[in-house]
């Protein structure tokens, strides 16, 4: 049978090309894999959820609490079906796994990118994969946001209101854009079916296609090699082949990881839609986006409101904070591979301490994002009395600018110290080597 298949499908070629792909042996190379496993689990749990979900925001009678015949308790069908999902066996669990996996996927992707950045793995010839990775990150965030809206509880309702406002804030075309994206003026009769389409078809399709490209390119270009490979066999690929050595490792990792997420999904509830209730006009105190979008939220909170007329379009703080500013940040991240002008291909992962400026810029960037995320807590800080309306903006602006600068120089200092110590070590061992002779 093997031969029969091989003659038709050329499996031996597949074997040579793909299944023998060497994987570097270092734990930091598992981060990308974890991202991939989360995506797979997300798709499986997502399909199961989609089977029980009703994508419609037309009103139906709440079967859990029908009200009285003359005053029926009407709620959106989508919210109703989310309540039903919670009530079905393991339904709540399914939602939790889906939710936590999404968070972990973004987290793993971010850490994976840090590894790439700090070890210089984005350099030639891997620029394209850095860019595809960036696109993956952006579309993953978009998928997550659309997913948040689907249960259509009050939280989702308020969130989609703000997202609508952000799209609408684009000068000139914003109104058209928002209405086209969200099926009419907020909240249009078709808003949930529209977002459902995005969340289960369009965005996952894009994610899968990009993931496929990402991995094919990775297989073609090979991983960067860890430093030990240089000593072991210079310019040779060192690692364990996918078939049969890496596969069991991956399987164990995937199962262990999924099991762990299941375990904590069993204990940590997510987003209690019953508590938030159906869409209403009651504001939700402490409403916040997920952690990976908190920095945009923070920017929105500290950019003072203004409006500016320009050729008949109006440019406001919303547009600057939620479109232009993140655009600049994401643009910077896109530009990372352009920072390196080397003509040669990069084979080996670099030691971050050998590139102090890159390292310090990276840590400063992370500090910048963290400080902006802190600014996202501005309403809470004011309510807690830590800041006042009058001084909050000034203090948060200072933090956002000063902390990254400080972190930058501290990192450079630490790297200097490490390198001085290392050189001293080398001199030492050299001296002792002589003494030994």
């Amino acid at each position, binding site marked *: 049978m093997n031969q029969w298949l091989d003659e038709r499908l050329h499996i031996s070629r597949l074997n040579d090309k793909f299944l023998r792909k060497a994987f570097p042996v270092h734990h930091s190379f598992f981060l990308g894999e974890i991202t991939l496993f989360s995506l797979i689990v997300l798709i499986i749990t997502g399909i199961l959820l989609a089977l029980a979900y009703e994508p419609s925001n037309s009103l139906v009678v709440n079967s859990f609490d029908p009200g009285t015949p003359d*005053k029926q308790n009407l709620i959106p069908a989508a919210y109703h079906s989310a309540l039903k999902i919670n009530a079905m066996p393991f339904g709540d669990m399914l939602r939790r796994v889906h939710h936590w996996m999404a968070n972990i996927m973004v987290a793993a992707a971010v850490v994976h990118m840090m590894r790439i950045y700090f070890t210089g793995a984005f350099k030639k010839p891997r620029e394209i994969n850095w860019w595809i990775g960036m696109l993956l990150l952006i579309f993953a965030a978009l998928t997550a946001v659309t997913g948040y809206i689907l249960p259509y509880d009050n939280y989702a309702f*308020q969130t989609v*209101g*703000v997202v*609508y*406002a*952000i799209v*609408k804030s684009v000068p000139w075309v914003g109104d*058209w854009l928002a*209405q*086209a*994206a969200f*099926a*009419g*003026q*907020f*909240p*249009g009769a*078709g808003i949930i079916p529209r977002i459902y389409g995005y969340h289960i078809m369009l965005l996952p399709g894009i994610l899968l296609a990009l993931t496929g490209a990402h991995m094919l390119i990775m297989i073609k270009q090979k991983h960067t090699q860890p430093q030990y490979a240089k000593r072991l066999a210079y310019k040779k690929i060192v690692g364990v082949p996918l078939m049969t050595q890496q596969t069991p490792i991956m399987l164990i990792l995937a199962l262990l990881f999924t099991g762990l997420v299941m375990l904590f999904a069993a204990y940590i509830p997510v987003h209690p839609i019953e508590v938030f209730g159906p869409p*209403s*006009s*009651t*504001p*939700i*105190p*402490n*409403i916040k986006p997920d952690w990976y979008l908190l920095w945009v*939220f923070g920017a*929105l*909170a500290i*950019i*003072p*409101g*203004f*409006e500016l*007329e320009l050729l008949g379009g*109006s440019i*406001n*703080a*919303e547009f600057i*904070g939620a479109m232009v500013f993140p655009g600049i940040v994401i643009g910077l991240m896109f530009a990372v591979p352009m920072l390196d002008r080397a003509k040669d291909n990069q084979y080996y992962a670099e030691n971050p301490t050998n590139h102090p400026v890159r390292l310090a810029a990276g840590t400063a960037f992370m500090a910048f994002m963290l400080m902006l995320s802190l600014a996202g807590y*501005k*309403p809470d800080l*004011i*309510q807690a009395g830590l800041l006042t*309306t*009058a001084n*909050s903006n000034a203090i948060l602006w200072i933090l956002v600018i000063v902390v990254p600068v400080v972190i930058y120089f501290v990192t450079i200092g630490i790297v200097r110290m490490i390198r001085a110590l290392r050189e001293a070590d080398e001199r030492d061992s050299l001296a002792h080597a002589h003494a030994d002779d």
Partner: protein
Amino acid sequence: MTRYKKQDPEITRRKFINAAMGTSAGVGVLSLVSALGSAKPVFRLTADVAPPMKGDVLVHAEGPNQGQVVKASELSDKLVRAYPKGRDSKGTEVIRDKDPTNILAVYKFAPGTLKEPTKLDATIDAQIVAYGDRCTHAGCNVGDDPKTSGHMFCPCHSGQYDATQGCRVLGGPPPAPLPQLPIKQEGDQLVVTGFFLSRPYGFNKEEDWEEYIKKVEEAMA
């Protein structure tokens, strides 16, 4: 390398194919874009999305009394959320709750508390006042500031308004005050006497809002 350029007939054929492909790609993209036009549904101004207007009665938007008339006697300096209730073209009563911008915040303050720039002649006895309750920043619903009575706090980006002074912005990112809605008292119920006095959330310019009012007046006449 020869000094003479050989005219290759293949090239022209290739050119033709490229041009043909380019054209069909262009046409394809154009038709796709035109199909995209269907993504934006037409907006129909129906009674349930029309803005609060003259003759509407305020009803409770939430809580146990939802849908019932807001009585002047049950108001206080704590925010009460209300929707306008009007009539559609057939004359049946309809609560205008399909447009989130129609949500209102109603207060009753002690005499002498309400000050300019509140339009005092659009309030009831300079005590009862109604505002649109969607933050002019990104459209979140604004609630009471738990710390100061008469102040409002937007949970989204900490926008703050002073409800006793025409909902002017005290802090945070909102670009404009919440719009005041002119009301009068009839018996114990609150009746709207006109449109929002300034632009509510969603209208970038006063002109846009005025244009919209005109359209509404025509459509609802």
